[in-house]
C-alpha cells in the first residue's frame, strides 16, 4: 500500500468526521473545521511534491500521466472552493460543505492511485 494514499485517506477521513461532527452539533464553520480542510489542502500539496519527485526519480505513472495531473490540479482546487463557499454563509450546513471537500478529495485520490498503478479504465 502506497504510504501517500494511506496518509491522504486518514487526513480526508479525519477532516470529514470533524466537519460532520460539527454540523451535527449545529456549529457554523469554526477554526477546527476550517483547519481540518486546510490540512487536506496541505496534504495535497505534499502529494504534488511527492508525485513530482517520484516521477523524476524513475517511478512513472503507468496510466495516462496527463489524466493523473488533471485530477491532481483539480483536487487542489476542491478544498479552496469548499472553504470559499462555506464562509459565505456561516450555518451548520456549511460544515457539511467542508466535509464534502474531504470526501471528494478522497475519491479523487483513489482514482489517482488507480491511474498511477495503471488499473484505471475511464
Amino acid at each position, binding site marked *: 500500500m502506497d504510504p501517500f494514499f494511506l496518509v491522504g485517506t486518514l487526513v480526508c477521513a479525519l477532516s470529514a468526521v470533524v466537519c460532520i461532527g460539527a454540523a451535527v452539533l449545529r456549529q457554523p464553520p469554526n477554526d477546527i473545521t476550517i483547519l481540518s480542510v486546510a490540512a487536506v489542502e496541505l496534504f495535497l500539496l505534499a502529494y504534488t511534491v511527492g508525485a513530482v519527485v517520484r516521477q523524476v526519480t524513475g517511478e512513472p505513472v503507468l496510466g495516462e500521466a496527463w489524466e493523473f495531473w488533471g485530477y491532481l490540479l483539480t483536487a487542489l482546487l*476542491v478544498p479552496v472552493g469548499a472553504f470559499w463557499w*462555506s464562509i459565505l454563509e456561516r450555518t451548520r450546513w456549511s460544515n457539511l*460543505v467542508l466535509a*464534502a471537500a474531504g470526501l471528494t478529495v478522497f475519491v479523487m485520490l483513489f482514482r489517482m492511485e488507480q491511474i498511477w498503478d495503471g488499473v484505471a479504465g475511464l
Partner: protein
Amino acid sequence: MRNRHEATPPGSRAQQGAPSGAAGTSRATGPGRLLIAVYGVFALAATARASFQIATKFGEAPLAYILSAVAAVVYIVATVSLARAGARAYRVSVVAVTIELVGVVAVGLLSVFDAQAFPSETVWSAFGRGYGFVPLILPILGLLWLRRNRPGRPRD
C-alpha cells in the same frame, strides 16, 4: 421569454443582484448550499470525464459519450441555476433537475437491461453506481428542495 428578459430595465437587474432580502435568494441557503456544492462537484466530474472520453476515444461508443456530455451540461446548468436568485433561474433549475432525474433513470435502466448499447461507463450508468448512487439521489433531493422553496411560498 428572451424578449422579456432583454426588455428588463437596468433597475430591476440591480434588484435581482441584491445580496439579501429578496425572497428569490433563499435557494442558496442552508441545506441548499450543500446541495449546490454537491452539484458543483458533479458538474466538474462529469465535464472532465466527458471531455476525456470524447477527446481520446469518441469512436468507441459515440452514444454513451454524447450522453456523458449531456449529463455534464445538465449538471452545470443545474448548479448555476440553483445558485442564482429569481423566478427565471427557478424554472431553469426545475427543468435541469427533472432532465437529470429522467436521464439517470433512463440510462440506468438501459445500461442494466441493454448492456450492449452502453458498453462504456457514464455518470448515469447503472443508476450512478460508480458514484455511490449519488446521481440517483441528487435529483430527488433537488426537486424536494425546489418544491420547498418555490417562488411565492410563504417563508417560515
